[in-house]
């Protein structure tokens, strides 16, 4: 019987150690991280970092539709990857950004119960999609979700037609109607309008801005760490 006990204890100890140190302690420790206030002198700006939170209602739609299967939300540091240099992956929307977008930090995901870092990158990264989509008309974003092929012929993004209603056009053209042309347009006399869920999803996508400047306090920590090396 002692041998059985030894085996059980061995398994419990060998798994218990990572369980405690890697999961339990960090889970409780990092629940208490708070936003950092920008320092007016050092940062040249007021307020708190992170500046804005992701839209929670729209996040539910994003989660439900499984967008994470193809879209990540995580910019990696530029010494390991070209993430920060891709067009439209940061705040700078020019074809060749002058500076790499910064890598994400823990506080960028402060408002999320479980950060939606993503499974794979079949589609572009969405960590900073808010900046990119802000340049587009809201109805154009809807058109992209309704008929991805109207934007890129070879896109392999599914159509989220089930988030939209095709209805008979009555009276003047609705402001909400999607600007669809050619084979993507609905039958004559009909128009495609977003459901509230589609609006929430777009609100969420527009709220994805994880490239706010890091406050000196957070950078200070990094600098101290670098100096210690």
């Amino acid at each position: 019987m002692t041998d059985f006990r030894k085996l059980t204890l061995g398994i419990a100890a060998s798994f218990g150690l990572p369980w405690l140190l890697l999961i339990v302690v960090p889970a409780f420790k990092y629940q208490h991280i708070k936003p950092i206030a920008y320092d007016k002198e050092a940062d040249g700006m007021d307020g708190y970092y992170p500046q804005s939170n992701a839209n929670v209602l729209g996040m539910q739609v994003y989660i439900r539709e499984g967008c994470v299967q193809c879209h990540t939300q995580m910019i990696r540091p530029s010494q390991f990857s070209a993430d920060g240099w891709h067009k439209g992956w940061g705040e700078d929307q020019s074809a060749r950004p002058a500076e790499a977008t910064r890598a994400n930090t823990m506080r960028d995901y402060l408002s999320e119960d479980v950060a939606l870092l993503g499974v794979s990158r079949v589609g572009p990264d969405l960590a900073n999609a808010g900046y990119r989509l802000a340049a587009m008309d809201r109805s154009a974003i809807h058109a992209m979700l309704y008929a991805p092929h109207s934007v890129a012929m070879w896109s392999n993004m599914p159509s989220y037609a089930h988030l939209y209603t095709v209805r008979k056009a009555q009276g003047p053209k609705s402001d909400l109607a999607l600007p669809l042309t050619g084979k993507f347009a609905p039958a004559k006399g009909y128009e495609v309008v977003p459901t509230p869920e589609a609006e929430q999803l777009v609100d969420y996508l527009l709220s994805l801005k994880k490239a706010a400047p890091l406050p000196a306090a957070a950078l200070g920590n990094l600098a101290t760490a670098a100096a210690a090396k």
Partner: protein
Amino acid sequence: MQNPSPNVEPDLQADTLRRAAIDRSVKGPVLFLLTNGAFWLMASTVLGLLAAIKSFAPDFLGHASFLTYGRLQPAHINALVYGWGFQAALGVMLWLMARRSGQELRTGKSLMMVAAFFWNITVTIGIGCILFGGNTSLEWLEMPAFTWPVLLFCFMVFAWPMVSMFARSHRPEGFMISSWYLFGACLWFPWLFSTANICLHWLPSLGVIGAGINAWYVHGVILLFFVPVGVGAAYYFIPKITGQPIASAQLAKTGFWLLAILGGWTGMQRFMGGPLPAWMVAIGAMTGVLLLIPVLVVGLNHHLTTLGKHNLVAVSPTLRFVFVGSIFYPIAGIILALISSFWTGFTFQFTHAWYGYQIIAVYGFFSMVAFGAIYYIVPRLSGCEWLSVRLIRNHFWFSVYGIGIVVVTSVVAGLQQGGDLTAPERWDQSWISVVLNARPYLIARAVAWAMITWSNVWFLLHLMLMVAGLGRRSSAPTLLERHDDHSDPHLTHGAKA
């Protein structure tokens, strides 16, 4: 150790009777789990085929909400893991544990049937929820939160009797490596499952740590549930069929303890370069690479045990599946090391290589071993022999080639995607060219899933006939004889080796 040794006739007869009694005692739950598992495998491969087609032709079959890739893909993986994987694992574990501990299953059989029934109901509801709007987007935990307590309880209904059988039969002098692995799986999974679910569903604002725990859970289920069950079964069937004892008890113990020590640390390297604290990612990457040692130790031990008996791989369906499974095992270990190390991991991160790893671990390794086990176990429980060599061969070759194609194309597609994404000289190419570069691999994946679906149709049919008692009435097992070798060059080759 395998054979209780005495050559005396009556003892052998008593032994056979005892084995038959053990088999009878677990028959109901084991056959129920294996048959339902096979149905889920069928469902999973069909969903996998659909998801693969949808991944390059999103308009296929129209725009219904439940047919979008974001819902099909998690439904496919969950059906594979919880529908097939866990049921096959529990069925094989229960039979093995009863046999290895030499005990009949005395109590709890009806509770087991109820638990197995509820497991299926819960997985059905869970996957229905994924498809119709209840997806949680937590990897491998996409089923809604209400499912996990039921699944955990059902698992415990099986795990508890297995643990107590193991405890009752544990003899210090008889070292039973396969039971060790199965015992480990009984402890590790509930621990992993409850930790991950409690953290992810109940602790608010975990943020990045939540994503880390999720990745840890996925690696944990692979390394501390599917791997121990698969390796444990291989440690039983390889010596059993080759008639040779396990080559080295020392290697077996080393492999077990290294897996136990390293398995719990790995997983968070999935988000390397990300917002997780660097030490958590680094330790995951380190253990992900170090796991090569226990993997290769086990591989070496299996190789040494099979040495000189390779002709049996051609003859015995069980050994053939288990053998191929244990070849996929070190390959899975190498893929894990490639996606884990900082050296290569950044290239493979967030690419199709991750899917390739999941499939080779759950299907290429675990399921192949489970198929081998099923070909051994079911005739002993149903009292008839497998009907057709041809069906078994069909199942084998289409599975091997199908899985091989899925894994190879996924890893190569990962290399392509990773190169497109991380190579500095391609930093300003348009996104659609990245998508187009990966497209041929996705088409190949769909073809491969079609092959696997084909193989599973025959497996399911064959298994259903067996469970219905419509197999061959014979005392001779169905072997993949060598008299029609000309149709199959691999067989002759194997026989000569």
